[in-house]
């Protein structure tokens, strides 16, 4: 039985919580398949991040180095990982379905002639996997054939790995990349500046929909509530479509999937595509003036009200609760 390689995503010397999710899922997969889990940190200078990753319970960490891995690019990373899979004889490659994971893993799978399972939510003992289809309206049980299988996991469906009792040994390797075959050039990364928590990591998410009517209202009406709650801000596809907010705030089938402790949907009708991205939240609150809105069918607490009155009122009420 071949081993599990976990691709550990990182940026600027740090890694997102979704990397710990990948480690947890990769270790679980290794246990269920009677294999060993190795985390891979790729970069031009991966040693420092590899030392951090080594605290989280993988059997081994590989620090995979090459100048062409300085910035993430699909072609260079797929080439480096494919060569590593062949060298190690690994059977599985796992990461979380982040924007990077979604970009990289299919390319890697094609390079290996391997099947890929996207965004799985469960690893079954019988060798099968579960993944959502049709915006989460169907759960598929799938199986993969072949010597190598590529998997991305849904970040909300697995826990994050916790620091382990012992530190994993680190192996330093130079990546095998034919630099002359690389065609993609990194130009720049324009990071959204925000003091708020990351959408996929936040304990509370407050999302706005078309009911907010403008980007300006996101700022003056919704943001005070977001900040009073210490929440991350999200949005429905309709709000993104209308140009109120950037797409990286989109929660739903074609955006991000979140499962916070508290999800507050403001002025969101609740199309199935939106529900696909938030229905696993622990507590769901909906504020909408239309009492027939489908969002109320999944909400633990629904308030039928004009959001332009209710949201500022809620900010005041929260301040009172805090003062006690």
């Amino acid at each position: 039985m071949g081993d599990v390689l976990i691709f550990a995503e990182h940026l600027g010397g740090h890694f997102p919580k979704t990397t710990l999710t990948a480690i947890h899922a990769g270790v679980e997969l290794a246990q269920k398949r009677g294999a060993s889990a190795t985390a891979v940190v790729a970069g031009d200078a991966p040693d420092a991040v590899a030392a951090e990753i080594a605290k989280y319970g993988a059997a081994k960490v590989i620090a995979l180095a090459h100048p062409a891995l300085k910035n993430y690019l699909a072609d260079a990373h797929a080439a480096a990982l494919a060569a590593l899979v062949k060298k190690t004889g690994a059977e599985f490659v796992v990461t979380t379905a982040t924007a990077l994971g979604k970009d990289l893993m299919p390319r890697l799978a094609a390079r290996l002639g391997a099947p890929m399972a996207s965004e799985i939510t469960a690893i079954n003992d019988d060798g099968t996997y579960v993944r959502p289809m049709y915006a989460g309206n169907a759960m598929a049980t799938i199986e993969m054939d072949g010597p190598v299988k590529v998997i991305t996991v849904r970040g909300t469906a697995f826990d994050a790995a916790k620091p382990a009792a012992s530190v994993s040994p680190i192996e330093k390797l130079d990546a095998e990349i034919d630099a002359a075959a690389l065609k993609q050039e990194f130009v720049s990364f324009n990071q959204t500046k925000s003091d708020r928590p990351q959408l996929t990591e936040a304990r509370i998410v407050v999302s706005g929909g078309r009911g907010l009517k403008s980007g300006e209202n996101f700022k003056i009406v919704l943001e005070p509530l977001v900040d009073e709650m210490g929440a991350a801000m999200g949005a429905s596809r309709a709000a993104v479509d209308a140009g109120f907010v950037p797409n990286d705030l989109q929660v739903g089938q074609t955006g991000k999937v979140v499962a916070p402790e508290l999800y507050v949907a403001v002025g969101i009708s609740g199309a199935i595509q939106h529900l696909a991205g938030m229905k696993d939240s622990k507590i769901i609150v909906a504020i909408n003036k239309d009492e027939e809105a489908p969002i109320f069918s999944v909400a633990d607490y629904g308030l039928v009200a004009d959001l332009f009155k209710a949201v500022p009122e809620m900010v005041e009420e929260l301040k009172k609760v805090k003062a006690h």
Partner: protein
Amino acid sequence: MKILVPIKRVPDPATTIRVLPDGSGIATDNVKWVINPFDEIAIEEALRIKEKQAGSEVVLVTIGQSTWQEQLRTGLAMGADRAILVKNDGYLDPLALAKIIAKVAAGENADLVLLGKQAIDDDSNQVGQMLAELLGWPQATFASKVEFADKRVTVIREVDGGLETIAFNLPAVVTTDLRLNEPRYASLPGIMKARKKELKEVAAESLGLDLAPKLKIKSLTAPPKRQAGRKVASVEELVSVLHTEAKVI
């Protein structure tokens, strides 16, 4: 520039999806079939490139049954020049689909393949990236802006936490995200013209590819249903229950 746009026929996003009781698939009675919305964005982008770069050609391709001609005709009515239907009845996994499109792209000498980032039925988000690898071409997924300077392409990508810009030379594969453009509707003259445009059929098995699926769907089940909770009467009550009952604030 020759632009190949692979499209997929999917249930209309507004359709309520029901899993069949035996788990073999979804109920397709009363389903309205449309072009995958992200592929519609790809067609629109291809048409805009053609409008700017004289002499360009936009070729559609889809892989499926004869009924899929309907979606190809819609794309032709939007303004694409011609279409190819690769006929196939059985199930194909994403890698097999990518192999077919790679073969068509090579045969057509395409400079650019533009397609949706994901199909909204199986939500796999794999074909574009696999295609780029099979062709040995650069890829830009989740594009929100595509710019050309001669053969050089610069793409702004929607990634976690911001926007990334990458660049490469043609030929290349670009997958579309939501904000790239707003697709046009087919005009009446467009619909009339589309009837006369070339729509070629090719049998998938004639391509000489190994299309046996390595990824198989064994069964489908309906997801657990979340129960609706209750309505609260006021903001005051809402904040109070969140604090004392749900204990989340």
